[in-house]
Each structure stands twice: as structure tokens, then as C-alpha cells.
């Protein structure tokens, strides 16, 4: 069936309407109904996206522009959507994983006083994310970009009674804003260069009209925006703190969808990055560096969600390394598989937390596989997927990225090596997490009775497990289905190539071997009742994220505070106020000083008159004329 404009527009309008409805009457709906409504809108979106995108699967179909309305008429900017394979893929991931998470949330958020509002925000988020991915130009992209930032803030600080949650929401928003500043400047440059913000126009004309220098500037600024949204160095600090939000939020926004917006954006604007190889290299460099960096931090975390947070940062780094190296398909592939297994990991962690009545510290878990068999099984699938063990999905996508990077040769091989080290660490810390949580002796507190999650939650876990297991088939070297699917979107772009078949086998073996090594090392350290102390200055430093957060607080927050205080006290109170009051004081003082002139004696007033006459006379005489 052809994608109709109505269908595509509905993708956004359904969750948007759902959100509005839930905001209005959500409070009055009895508990599961609000959740069901929220799930319904997103689920319906998934179905519509599947129908609308069917044509792309068969290789037919064409990109469908869906114009909406004239927005900024004086600038010639109009709002509209673009339905092509790339946006279709993103829409499917967002609505598919999104609906599963909505379903799960019905169980997780049970009993929460603001149940309805939660789903309103979640629906709003889905709508915003869809605006972002379906936009036909930078203008609407930016609108979606900002809206997801807003929803992220609302959802992170959902339990705003907790000061930590409120602070985390603020931090996320502010750090995002920093990146957005760069993004906005990039948009201005684009508009200045092309007079339009539409993808078709900008990307179509780019190769002919854009100089390398300008392209480099624009793409670096876009990278700044992407770094903020996708938590790359140095704008990653908000993501670990964002774990204060409810776990479904972490799963949806901070694992599967919002944080991937940066990767999507780089893929979408690939034509610009093709013109600026230096920027592409920077993207890849930043990506792999962040990946390695975050992986080291993840090793030292005690909180189960923080392990996953740093893991997300690390995997996002992989994706950036991929698209930076020109492996757009591989990057999007990893984005998709990561959405599956990371969401699964978070939801599973949520089930664990739910079972242990709020406990999140790994040191107080252990041996949970007996009590939470379904959760444990699905978590194991996710663990193997993220570690890159064949034939699970994570192996295929991660390996494709690494292989493509290797194939580029030269300095890129260094990145390949770093990628392997990161893979080792990934396997290691994920294994550590699983061992500590699910195996070994039980260490949980007295009075805690862990129980398996309700069916509404385990259903989503199961579906995601299946996807994590089998999604690899979508793009194997023998049948690169995703590549063909996405071909129309990446037309005219320089794509990186995979190495020869023989090399690919070798590389695959190396990747799998490294993953296995990580798992075994972790087993040696953490299984069979062994538990290393993980104490000491070095551990502490790494656990605290190398104290980067504290550094930021000292420099920016304190600095900003000092500037604000200066402006308020010195400049405003003393300066401006003083000036205004000073005028009054001045007038009064002058009046007081002049008062003695009024003596009341007429003769003295006469004296004044004569004095004035003398002065006047003298002046006229000095001028020698009137």
C-alpha cells in the first residue's frame, strides 16, 4: 500500500492527541485505562508505519514528501514531513519499542499518584521524536529536537519531590542547551548558505555549492548539537544523572530513542559530512574516545542503572564512530539492535528494582535467577547481545561497524583497535553486572521478598528478547537487507565499504573472541562467590567518572553563580539602584545647599539682581557686540 500523506501525519497526530487528552482528563481515568490509551496511540502508530513503509521493503516505493503548512513565510520556511526509508526505519523503532515500553509501564507505574500524567508525557515524547525523525528539513527537525529535550526534562524529573530528580532534569536540559547553541549556529549557517532549510534543497545542492571550509564549520557545529543530545564527550554528564527518572523513561528516552537522535541527524545530513572529511574524522574520533571512556567508568559502578547509563554512552560512541567512518548503514543497524537490547536491559533492571522494592545497588542483589526466572532469561539474552556474541543481533551490528572501520585502513585501524578494547570492556562490565545481580549468593536485605514481574511487564521483556536474539538477520553479509532498504535515503552519498569476505571472517572471529574473553575474565572475577573489593583511590576516581562532573560544577556552576551574584549585588543594587537613588539624593542635596540663598531680605535679592546685571554687561562687552 502506498504511503499516504494522511497516514504519515497520523503517526504524529495520534500520540500528540493522546498526550493532550491524557493531560486533560488523565487524572480522572481509573488506573490502567490511561496507560492503555497511551499504549494504543503508539501501537497504532507502529501499525501505520509498517503499512506505510511496506513498499520500501520490497525495493519499490519512493520518498513521499508530506507538506503541512507555511511556517516562517518571510524566510520561505515551510513545515512538512518526509517519508523515506531512513525516517521509516526510525519511526518503526520509535513506535515499536515505544509501544512495548508503554505496555510495560502500565505495570511499573502502578499505584503512582500521577499515573495518567506519566503517559501523557510519554506520548508527547513519542510525538516529538516522530516530528524529529519525520521532518523534511532542519526547521522542523529542530522543533522536534527541542521538544524531546523538554519531554526528557519532564520525565527525568517526574518524581520531582526528590531534589535529586529535579536537579537531574535541570542538568539534562541545560547541558542539552549548550549543544543546541552549536546546532542553532549550524542552522543559521545552512540558511545563510542555501537560503533554505529543506533537506531536499540543502543536501541536493550541497556538493555543488558548499565549500569545504563552510561544510566543515557547519558539520562541526552539528556535531556539537549531536554530542549534547547523544551524550558524547564532553556533554555526556547529564545521562548518568538522568537515571533518577522512572526506569521506563530510561529505557525509552535514554537508551532507545532520544539519545539516538544525534546519530540519526548525522546520518540524515551525511551529504554534508561527505564534503568535510575532517569533520567526519572528528565525529568518529569523538565517538570512539567516548565509547572507551564510558566503558571504563561503567566497570566501577555499583548502581545497576548507572552501569547501563554509561553503557549507553559507550554504545552511542560506537554508532558515532560508525557514521563518522562513512558506515551509515552499519551505524543505523547498531542503533536499531541497540534499541532492542538496551531497552530490554533497562526494562529488566526495572523488573529487578520493582522486585526488590526499590533496591538498585548491585552489592545487595545476587542469586535472583531463582526468583525471577523470566526476567533473568531475557536479561541473559540482552547481555549476550550487547557483548557481541554471535549469532545475536548485537554481534552483527557491532562487527559491521568494526569491519568497515578496519577496511578504511591507515589511521582508522587505531580506531578499530580502540573499538576492540571497548568491546572487551563492554563484555566485561555487562557480565559483571549480570553475575552480581542474578547469580551467586543472595545478598539482599531482610524483609525484601523478590517476586517475578507481572505479565504486562514480562510480555515486553519477552518480545524484546526475541528481537535482540534474531534481529541480526536483517543485515548479514550474505543478505544485506537493511542496506538495500536504506539505499534510497543514502543515494549519492559516499558510503564506506566492507572488506573482502575472507577478511570479514577473520575480523568476525576476532570480535567474537574478544567478547568471549571479556565474559570469561568477569566470570573469573565475580563468579563462584568471589567478589573483589573494588576499593581504593583508583576505583573511586573511575566510579566518580573521573570527577568531570565536579569539575564542571566548579567551573561553570560556581562561575556562573559568581557572575550572577556580581550582577545582582554590585551592578544592580549598588550601580543601577545607586544611580537612581543618587539622582534623588543629588537633587535634595543641591536644594539644601541652595536654600540659604533665600534670606528673606529684599535688599539682598536686589544685590543679586545687580550682580546679574553686571555679569551680563561684562559678557556683552567682552563679545564686542550683540
Amino acid at each position: 500500500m502506498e504511503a499516504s500523506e494522511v497516514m504519515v501525519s497520523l503517526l504524529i497526530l495520534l500520540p500528540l492527541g493522546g498526550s493532550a487528552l491524557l493531560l486533560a482528563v488523565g487524572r480522572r481515568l481509573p488506573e490502567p485505562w490511561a496507560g492503555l490509551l497511551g499504549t494504543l496511540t503508539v501501537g497504532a502508530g507502529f501499525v501505520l508505519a509498517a503499512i506505510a513503509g511496506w513498499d520500501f521493503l520490497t525495493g519499490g516505493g519512493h520518498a513521499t514528501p508530506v507538506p503541512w503548512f507555511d511556517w516562517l513565510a518571510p524566510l520561505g520556511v515551510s513545515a512538512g514531513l518526509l517519508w523515506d526509508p531512513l525516517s521509516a526505519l526510525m519511526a518503526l523503532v520509535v513506535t515499536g519499542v515505544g509501544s512495548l515500553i508503554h505496555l510495560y509501564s502500565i505495570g511499573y507505574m502502578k499505584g503512582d499518584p500521577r499515573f495518567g500524567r506519566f503517559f501523557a508525557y510519554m506520548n508527547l515524547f513519542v510525538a516529538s521524536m516522530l516530528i524529529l525523525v519525520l521532518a523534511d528539513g532542519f526547521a522542523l527537525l529542530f522543533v522536534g529536537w527541542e521538544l524531546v529535550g523538554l519531554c526528557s526534562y519532564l520525565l527525568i524529573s517526574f518524581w520531582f519531590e526528590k531534589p535529586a530528580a529535579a536537579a537531574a532534569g535541570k542538568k539534562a536540559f541545560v547541558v542539552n542547551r549548550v549543544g543546541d547553541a552549536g546546532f542553532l549556529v549550524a542552522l543559521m549557517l545552512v540558511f545563510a548558505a542555501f537560503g533554505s532549510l529543506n533537506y531536499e534543497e540543502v543536501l541536493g545542492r550541497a556538493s555543488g555549492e558548499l565549500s569545504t571550509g563552510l561544510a566543515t564549520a557547519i558539520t562541526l557545529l552539528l556535531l556539537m548539537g549531536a554530542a549534547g543530545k547523544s551524550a558524547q564527550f564532553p556533554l555526556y554528564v547529564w545521562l548518568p544523572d538522568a537515571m533518577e527518572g522512572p526506569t521506563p523513561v530510561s529505557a525509552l528516552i535514554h537508551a532507545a530513542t532520544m539519545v539516538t537522535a544525534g546519530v540519526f541527524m548525522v546520518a540524515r545530513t551525511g551529504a554534508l559530512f561527505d564534503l568535510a572529511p575532517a569533520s567526519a574524522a572528528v565525529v568518529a574520533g569523538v565517538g570512539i574516545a567516548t565509547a572507551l571512556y564510558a566503558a571504563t567508568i561503567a566497570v566501577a559502578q555499583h548502581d545497576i542503572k548507572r552501569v547501563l547509563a554509561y553503557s549507553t554512552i559507550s554504545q552511542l560512541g560506537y554508532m558515532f564512530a560508525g557514521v563518522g567512518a562513512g558506515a551509515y548503514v552499519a551505524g543505523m543497524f547498531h542503533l536499531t539492535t541497540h534499541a532492542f537490547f538496551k531497552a530490554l536491559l533497562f526494562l529488566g533492571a526495572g523488573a529487578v528494582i520493582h522486585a526488590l522494592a526499590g533496591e538498585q545497588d548491585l552489592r545487595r542483589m545476587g542469586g535472583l535467577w531463582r526468583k525471577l526466572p523470566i526476567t533473568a532469561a531475557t536479561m541473559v539474552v540482552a547481555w549476550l547481545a550487547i557483548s557481541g556474541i554471535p549469532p545475536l543481533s548485537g554481534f552483527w551490528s557491532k562487527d559491521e561497524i568494526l569491519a568497515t572501520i578496519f577496511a578504511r585502513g591507515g589511521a582508522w585501524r587505531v580506531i578499530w583497535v580502540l573499538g576492540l578494547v571497548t568491546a572487551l570492556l563492554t563484555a566485561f562490565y555487562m557480565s559483571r553486572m549480570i553475575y552480581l545481580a542474578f547469580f551467586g549468593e543472595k545478598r539482599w536485605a531482610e524483609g525484601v521478598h523478590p517476586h517475578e514481574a507481572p505479565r504486562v511487564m514480562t510480555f515486553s521483556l519477552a518480545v524484546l528478547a526475541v528481537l535482540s536474539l534474531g534481529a541480526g538477520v536483517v543485515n548479514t553479509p550474505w543478505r544485506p537487507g537493511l542496506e538495500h532498504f536504506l539505499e534510497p535515503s543514502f543515494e549519492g552519498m559516499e558510503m564506506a565499504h566492507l572488506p573482502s569476505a575472507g577478511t570479514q571472517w577473520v575480523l568476525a572471529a576476532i570480535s567474537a573472541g574478544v567478547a568471549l574473553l571479556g565474559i570469561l575474565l568477569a566470570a573469573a572475577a565475580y563468579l563462584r562467590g568471589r567478589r573483589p573489593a573494588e576499593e581504593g583511590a583508583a576505583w573511586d576516581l573511575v566510579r566518580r567518572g573521573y570527577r568531570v562532573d565536579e569539575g564542571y560544577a566548579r567551573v561553570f556552576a560556581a562561575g556562573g553563580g559568581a557572575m550572577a551574584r556580581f550582577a545582582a549585588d554590585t551592578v544592580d543594587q549598588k550601580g543601577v539602584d545607586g544611580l537612581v537613588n543618587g539622582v534623588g539624593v543629588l537633587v535634595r542635596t543641591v536644594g539644601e545647599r541652595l536654600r540659604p540663598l533665600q534670606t528673606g531680605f529684599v535688599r539682598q535679592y536686589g544685590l543679586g539682581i545687580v550682580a546679574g546685571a553686571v555679569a551680563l554687561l561684562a559678557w556683552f562687552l567682552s563679545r564686542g557686540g550683540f
Partner: protein
Amino acid sequence: MTVTAGWYLALAAVIFVIGAGGMLLRRNALVMFMSVELMLNAANLSFVAAGRQLGLLDGQAAVFFVMVVAAAEVVVGLAIIVAVFRRRATASVDELSGLKG
């Protein structure tokens, strides 16, 4: 030597200064007033002298008007002095310092 207009002007200046001195230095209200009259007359004299110098009648017309105004002023001024004297039994202007700031 002929008497030019300049002589009259010089004389007028001297009379004016004398009148001003009287206004500033005497305390008796009536004497002050008379000094003011002196100044007015000095000004009139200079008007007439200048009119002669320039060959115009404008000077004399001006004198005419000055005289009318001076007369009106004297009327009102003396009425005021009388009224004040009735209230305070003094003719000294220094006593009237009620408008002191």
C-alpha cells in the same frame, strides 16, 4: 565743545548708579522707592538722549510709556507700604523677612 548725547548718557549712568545704591543700602521703604524712581528717570533720560542721537521719536514714545507704568507702579507700591505699615508699624524692609527659605 558741544554737548553730545554721550554726555547725557554718562550722566544718566551716574544717576542710575546712585539710585541703585540707595535701593540697596537704605532700609526705609519709602526711600528705597524713591531711589527706584531715580533709576527710572535715569533710564528715561538715556532714552531721550539716544532718540536725539538717532534722530527718531521712538525714544520719546518709550519715555511716555515708562512714565505711565512708573506712575501705576508708584500707586500700587505706596498702597502696599501703607497697608504693611498699618499691620506692623514699621517702615523698615528688613523686618519683612517672612519669605525666608
